[in-house]
């Protein structure tokens, strides 16, 4: 019998049963599957089936009998059926909007799980859910490569969910090199349209962050898929390893940089630097930003100039002067070669 069919039959049998079903009865019910081979092989086969059912959320368990009932396998019907969750139409619409936006984005880990989840929560909703008018485009890779990105996301999501190590070859734009490494995938994060893998890198012997679009090849450890390869440290926090803004790349120790914002930009300060302490005085503001990559912050600030400039510390002011001097030099005269002054 085909496996899908056998598993469905098992569910039908167990959901219907009034009392626990013993192993002997199961073997009788599926002679072709659980009797054709040795006892041991048959038991292993059943264990694999049981594991698959558990993964599907089917609460199958073995119960020890007592005076009133015999030993055997049961499915707890209470725990099996999806109950009416009682979502309001607004709650349902919001979940649908979020889910559909993620699915439509072309690359989202657990797409298949997400699609099923949306169907299930919609099961009790009588009416059609309106089409959400929200959309996501990651834009980190050209659309043609999005499917590739989606595939990597699925592989890495499976790897981190089942705690299996991955082998990846990774391109670093900083060094221009592609290196092969073994990584324990701790988790996936998306910031400003870019998906990152955070994990323990065996090559560097530390936690590292990898942009998915720079992973050139990827393979999940195929050995013993049900046995985890690693543990995630209990104090691990994804958020501590991914940068949301260009000044958060952890290139150096945190430095508080003070920026001055003037004119129209002044009122937008809390928006432009969401993690900053902002003080407004009249038509200007000061924003104190904690940076772990000052150059990233200064470049961003330069793009807001002349309404934005740096007030301190002196090292950041000095760096600002270097940058502006270099831009000036490159554009003042008749086109010298770039990089000569670096």
């Amino acid at each position: 019998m085909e496996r899908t069919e056998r598993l469905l039959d098992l569910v039908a049998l167990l959901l219907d049963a009034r009392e626990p079903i013993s192993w002997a009865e199961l073997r009788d019910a599926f002679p072709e599957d659980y009797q054709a081979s040795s006892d041991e092989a048959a038991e292993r086969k059943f264990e694999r089936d049981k594991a698959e059912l558990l993964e599907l959320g089917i609460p199958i368990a073995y119960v020890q009998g007592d005076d009133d009932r015999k030993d055997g396998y049961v499915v707890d019907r209470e725990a099996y059926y999806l109950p009416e969750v009682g979502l309001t139409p607004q709650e349902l619409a919001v979940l649908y909007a979020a889910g559909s936006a993620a699915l439509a984005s072309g690359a989202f880990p657990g797409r298949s799980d997400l699609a099923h989840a949306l169907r299930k929560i919609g099961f009790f909703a009588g009416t059609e859910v309106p089409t959400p008018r929200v959309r996501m485009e990651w834009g980190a890779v050209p659309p043609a490569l999005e499917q590739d990105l989606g595939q990597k996301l699925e592989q890495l999501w499976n790897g981190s969910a089942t705690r299996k190590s991955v082998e990846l070859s990774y391109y670093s734009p900083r060094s221009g090199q592609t290196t092969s490494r073994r990584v324990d995938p701790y988790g996936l994060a998306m910031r400003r349209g870019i998906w990152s893998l955070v994990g323990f890198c065996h090559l560097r012997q530390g936690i590292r962050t990898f942009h998915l679009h720079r992973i050139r090849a990827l393979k999940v450890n195929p050995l013993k898929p049900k046995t985890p390869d690693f543990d995630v440290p209990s104090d691990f926090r994804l958020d501590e390893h991914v940068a949301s803004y260009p000044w958060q790349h952890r290139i150096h120790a945190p430095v508080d940089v003070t920026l001055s914002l003037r004119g129209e930009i002044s009122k937008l300060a809390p928006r432009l630097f969401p993690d900053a302490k902002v003080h407004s005085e009249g038509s200007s503001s000061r924003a104190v930003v904690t940076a772990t990559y000052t150059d990233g912050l200064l470049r961003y600030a330069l793009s807001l100039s002349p309404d934005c400039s740096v007030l301190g510390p002196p090292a950041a002011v000095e760096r600002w002067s270097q940058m502006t001097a270099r831009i000036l030099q490159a554009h003042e005269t008749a086109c010298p070669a770039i990089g000569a002054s670096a």
Partner: protein
Amino acid sequence: MPGDWSIGVSDVHERLRRLLFLVPYISKHPGISVEELARALSLGTDQLLKELEILTMVGRPPFQPDDYIDIYVENGRVYVDLDQRFSAPPRLTAAEATALTAAAELLKPAAGGALESALAKLEKVLPAEVRRQYRDMGRKIDASVQGPPELALLAKAIADRREASFAYYSHGRGAVEQRQVRPLELFSHRGQWYLHAYCLSRKDERLFRLDRIRDLAVTNTPFERGNGRRPMVPNPAGAAKEVKVRFSEVVAPYIRERFGQHVRALEDGGAEVNVAGDSERWLVQWVLSFGGEAQVVEPEWARRLIAQAAAAAAAH
């Protein structure tokens, strides 16, 4: 909901949960058309009919005629005899709940309280063991788009089809202008949120960056939605664009990642791209944002603009 969702998930797993959903769904919608059912399951009709065929072979031992699921297609409509065993689909699995929550993160600021309460309700119906797994998996994914607070109001204005007004900081002009719009769609591109709307002031459809909107107010003026097209965020690069920008070896790899085919490699390891010059302000800010690693080669007017801007920045 397009695309191939089966990637990475074993075929058996995927089919089983589809089939376990199918039976309750059909008994809830007796006589549903094959096409409609296929749509609900995101399957082709051929694939759906194959799945239905399998279901007719599912039953419980000893497999007497009455032991089979009684499912049939008649005149393009699907029926199942009331089957108590499959009256509702199985609960959410840990992976399903996690995926849903991760997706919900994308809309977090937009959806406000409704999202929080929905997720709380869903978590409550997870069996204890599944809830434990769900919490563990939740630590492994974090898709945050960091939308501004205006998302919530705008999402509602779009749904209710109400005109909105706001002050908009136009980067191109460097000025704030009052706009009255018919909001059509919200979308996030490269992590930046945009509102696609019909602008009543400009009498045309426009894209507005949400981080440049202030003093948003939703009016009571209703409007009818037309057949809107889907706007794209323009790609500034292209061979025919007038401004030639050269990048140092340090930033060239990032430029290649960003602009791909539009990039020309230079002998010294640098890179060159042509970009649009129609928004002078954008051009200046973009070049400045490379902190000296980018240089406009031509035209001369663009070089002068950059030099002026750098001088102004240096003066502060």
